[in-house]
């Protein structure tokens, strides 16, 4: 039913809240992509069946919900039981019976399913006490894991669309812009441009039509914050966009979503339909006379389409090639009209700022980087997943306290932020505060929030080669410095990784990079050399070892090393023999094993599996 006034929104919120409160025990099952892949759907089905067949819903006032990503993807499928906050990890359908009988009916905790702190070895009952969660501060991800993303009532129950009501009835568009400016909110999509300033420029640009768009292209390979927000709390994005549209005076817009994110598309579309039905989208929103509607534009799997001018072309149904930006897209954007484009996470912050106040947001974080930032913490870190932390926290806190340190307690080597346009920072930068300006100064960048942790088994030259390969693939080909230059850089790196590097290669890389940075048309090209330049800055010795000594100490570049089994360390357990896909390891049980260097493909399966670290790179 349509919610036509602010008053009826308040009534609806009260009703939705009391419905939520009537539920005494709530079982929340994560159905984010990570947990789905781990089989959480089977857990939900099994729970549904048992709960229905035993008529527990009425008896125990039990609620079952599938939610968006809880963030702790490493340990999925995750089940949280509220109000106590009991956190079960790695739940299988066969555990369901026990969960129902012990926890739901008798109120007991099942030890086996609890999270165990790898350092203290203690089992932790409540999820707020797990270090992975306790150090986080969730604003953009505030509702994810707590609400059913498919239910607008659930969103309204937790205060959804109240920010929109405030903006439309108690604030002028200028006041909204002022508030966003005061909050210090900067774009979360990579550039970090102040959102308030962008909105103001758009509002002041003379035009009949303006557009408000959302960038959900999330091109950074290894990042999934935006996806989790779209999947887990789509209404937050929509509410933010309507507030933004009111502020700049736009009546329509789009959300540009990656084609590879089918679940995000589905949840966003459902949310849009529900918001239209309730009247939060469409004409005369909440009786204010203001109209705004939004459509989904599916991306086609091109990284460059995340760039603003390319994105707008793609939304307009053309091939997404960027243009030179003598005139910015806030002035001349979609269909040549003034357009505000913000990132998913930026939009998700907006309702919170209106609800809680710009001052409160501005006190979080550091001077020029206020609020929080979501990161996808991945790579060789123990607790992989999605985290949101206040700006200004150090890299060390994120990686070692929230992330729990490096897998297998191996030595830390580098952390990569900023995706293909970003860079790698070494150990001595770990105490830097994470904010837009500090990371840029250090030669990396905040980017959209991918944070990839690397250990001593990651080769930095190969990492640079990897990003360049990605960029060669994704360069649209419109300008020559990027199309040809990045390709040449990639060729040089391929040679170095193949053991065919030449003295002078490093200098060639540096001068070529200079040209690409200054002469490319869009930010894809301009930032393409970053992965090489930052690794050269901090790990030049690795490049030199590859070129001059023909050695890859990390054991990645296959022409530049071989594996050997250490006689002292090997216990003859046979694990590596089983793991080897080409039967190149020989040896009797309890005797030292040997690798046949002639047939070994250096795939590393033995090294991954060895429990005593006996496989050495030589």
């Amino acid at each position, binding site marked *: 039913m349509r919610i036509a006034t602010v008053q009826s929104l308040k009534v609806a919120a009260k009703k939705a809240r009391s419905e939520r409160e009537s539920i005494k025990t709530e079982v929340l099952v994560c159905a984010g992509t990570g947990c789905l892949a781990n089989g959480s759907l089977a857990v939900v089905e099994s729970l549904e069946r048992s709960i229905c067949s035993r008529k527990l819903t009425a008896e125990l006032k039990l609620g079952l919900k599938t939610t968006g990503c809880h963030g702790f993807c490493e340990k999925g499928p995750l089940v949280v039981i509220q109000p106590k906050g009991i956190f079960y990890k790695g739940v299988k359908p066969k555990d369901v019976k026990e969960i129902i009988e012990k926890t739901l009916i008798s109120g007991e905790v099942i030890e086996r399913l609890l999270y165990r702190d790898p350092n203290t070895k203690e089992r932790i009952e409540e999820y707020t006490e797990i270090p992975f969660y306790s150090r986080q501060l969730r604003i953009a991800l505030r509702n994810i894991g707590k609400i059913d993303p498919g239910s607008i009532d659930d969103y309204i129950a937790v205060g959804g669309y109240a920010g929109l009501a405030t903006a439309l009835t108690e604030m002028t568009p200028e006041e909204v812009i002022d508030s966003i400016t005061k909050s210090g909110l900067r774009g979360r999509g990579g550039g970090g441009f102040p959102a308030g300033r962008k909105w103001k420029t758009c509002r002041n640009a003379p035009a009949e039509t303006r557009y408000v768009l959302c960038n959900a292209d999330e091109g950074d390979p290894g990042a999934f914050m935006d996806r989790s927000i779209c999947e887990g709390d789509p209404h937050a994005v929509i509410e933010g966009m309507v507030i933004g549209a009111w502020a700049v005076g736009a009546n329509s817009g789009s959300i540009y979503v990656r084609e590879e994110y089918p679940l995000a598309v589905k949840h966003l579309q459902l949310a849009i339909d529900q918001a239209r039905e309730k009247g939060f989208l469409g004409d005369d929103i909440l009786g204010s006379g203001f109209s705004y509607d939004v459509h989904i534009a599916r991306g086609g799997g091109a990284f460059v389409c995340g760039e603003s001018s390319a994105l707008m072309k793609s939304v307009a*149904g053309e091939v997404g090639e960027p243009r030179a930006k003598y005139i910015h897209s806030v002035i001349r954007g979609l269909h040549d009209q003034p357009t505000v484009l913000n990132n998913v996470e930026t939009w998700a912050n907006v309702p919170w700022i209106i609800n809680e106040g710009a001052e409160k947001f501005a006190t979080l974080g550091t001077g020029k980087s206020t609020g929080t930032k979501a990161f996808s913490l991945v790579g060789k870190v123990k607790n992989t997943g999605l985290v949101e932390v206040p700006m200004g926290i150090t890299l060390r806190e994120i990686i070692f306290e929230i992330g729990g340190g490096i897998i297998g307690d191996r030595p830390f080597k580098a952390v990569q932020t900023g995706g293909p346009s970003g860079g790698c920072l070494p150990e001595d930068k770990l105490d830097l505060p994470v904010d837009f300006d500090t990371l840029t100064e250090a030669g990396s960048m905040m980017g959209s929030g991918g944070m990839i942790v690397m250990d001593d088994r990651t080769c930095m030259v190969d990492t640079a080669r990897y990003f360049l390969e990605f960029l060669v693939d994704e360069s649209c080909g419109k300008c020559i410095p990027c199309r040809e230059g990045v390709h040449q850089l990639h060729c040089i790196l391929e040679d170095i990784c193949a053991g065919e590097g030449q003295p002078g290669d490093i200098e060639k890389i540096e001068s070529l990079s200079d040209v690409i940075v200054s002469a490319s048309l869009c930010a894809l090209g301009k930032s393409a050399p970053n992965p090489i330049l930052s690794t050269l800055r901090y790990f030049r010795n690795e490049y030199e070892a590859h070129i001059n000594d023909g050695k890859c100490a990390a054991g990645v570049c296959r022409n530049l090393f071989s594996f050997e089994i250490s006689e002292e360390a090997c216990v003859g357990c046979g694990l590596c023999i089983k793991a080897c896909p080409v039967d190149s390891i020989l040896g009797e049980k309890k005797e030292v094993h040997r690798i046949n260097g002639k047939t070994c493909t250096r795939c590393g399966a033995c090294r991954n599996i060895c429990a005593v670290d006996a496989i050495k790179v030589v």
Partner: protein
Amino acid sequence: MTKTCVDPKKARKILDRYPSGDGTSLIHALQDIQAEFGYVPCEAAELLCEHLSVPISKAFSAATFYKAFSLEPKGDVVIRVCTGTACHIRGAQTLVDELCSILNVAPGKTTKDLKFTLETVNCVGACAMAPVVSLNGEYHGNVQPGTMSKKIRGGK
């Protein structure tokens, strides 16, 4: 573009969703065609361009620019190896190499018998389980070298 038999009725049904002569629907319509046929057949693209009054070169340009489009039919089993950053540093390249040699095709290609297509993708959002391989959309996490052949041989 590969010539194959395409059910013109199915293609027509997609075209009817878009007003004739409106070139701005090109990409949306191509996405629908891709979804219906699993690739963009030449005949369907020709019909579409006629319908929208755009030159076929435009359809070709869009279909080669965006990764979501394929101009060749796909195999029964589409194997996607994630080569996003998280998967890369946990050994995705080894898996790609291994699959290339098992199937005897390059990434992006389909085996002659149309049984398997090998593709690489950038991050499927399950980085916590890296390296990730999906078989017809079903995810397999923490895949170790040497285990792929068993997984796909079920179907070979």
